[in-house]
């Protein structure tokens, strides 16, 4: 009976912690959903450990306690893979953003210099330079 109490305590603690963190609104959209599902699974397995034995029987595993461990590790791996994919996507966006920022900064500087030249009554030799053409930007 004590073992069931321990498992229930761990389950409730973990699920409670996840629920608390999700409720504090630190995660957006799908992440929160994923973690809520995990919290629910931990809660159920923690409070009703016989579910694991039943699952082991159904899936034909002779040593059921290994089942949540394997499933858990699998999920962690998938989660890490998704994290790396997300990070790569963000890295790409970050690099492109930095590039665009640098290009716009250069254009702003050129426009400012041109404007101050005009204001000082010293337009450049090039007439059309007073209007800085801003061509259509490519993809951001």
């Amino acid at each position: 009976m004590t073992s069931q109490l321990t498992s229930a305590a761990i389950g409730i603690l973990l699920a409670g912690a996840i629920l608390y963190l999700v409720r504090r609104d630190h995660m957006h959209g799908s992440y929160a959903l994923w973690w809520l599902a995990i919290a629910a699974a931990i809660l159920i397995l923690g409070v009703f450990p016989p579910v694991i034995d039943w699952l082991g029987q159904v899936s034909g595993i002779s040593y059921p306690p290994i089942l949540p461990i394997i499933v858990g590790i699998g999920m962690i791996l998938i989660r890490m893979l998704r994290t790396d994919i997300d990070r790569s996507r963000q890295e790409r966006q970050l690099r492109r953003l930095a590039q665009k920022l640098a290009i716009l900064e250069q254009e702003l500087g050129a426009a400012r210099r041109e404007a101050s030249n005009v204001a000082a009554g010293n337009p450049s030799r090039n007439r059309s330079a007073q209007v800085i053409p801003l061509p259509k930007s490519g993809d951001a």
Partner: protein
Amino acid sequence: MGKSVPETTATKRAALAVIPARNEAATVADIVQRTLATGQCDVLVVDDASNDETAVLARTAGATVITVPFNLGAWGATQTGMRFAQRNRYHTVLTLDADGQHHPEELPLMLASLRRSGANVIIGTYSRRMSPARRLAGRYFRLLTRLNVQDFTSGLRAYDRRAVRALASREASLLDYQDMGVLMLLSKKGLILREVPTIMSPRRAGASRVFASWLLVARYMLHTTVLCFSQLGVRARIAVRAQPAAGSPA
């Protein structure tokens, strides 16, 4: 100020020389002046978050300077130049290193062979500088990618409009060097690469960023091999997808 970029007018401009530079204060001004002296291109120096006077010296020498907010690496800086060229409608982009190993005097030759040969990309190669290890690496990558390029790390290149469009794209943003990844992307898009022998100097300051030590070489080879494999997969997928589309009337 000389031929800084915003002051030229034509809607469709000639060539832009993109010079990525990180802490190259010793050489950048000289390279910019010699590039401008060829009279065939505007000069853009992309300052890759240098700690020294690179940006100021390049601007004083007559280049347009873009300073990126944090270190983007050699390719990240070069791609910034590609995007600048696209935005300002240049139809050719030349790239060369700021460390003095590429001679700006070779640029007219590169431009001429880009125009004459009908290739989309011209790679300036210097076969004499290649060590046996480098040759071996070259053979290995040629085997892996079936690209017929001798000097795949050369940063002295000329790209036409189509190549610039391909390299300014999002797809090219996660590459790290202007080498195999770039070449594979270009050939995947069906662009034609050609090599032209040129004169180069040994690097004055420091060694090649890629071939500095055996550990780095190993890391680079592994990195590029992985890149090759992922690219090959993509190419196969695209070929499969393209087949039914090619047959359809649309």
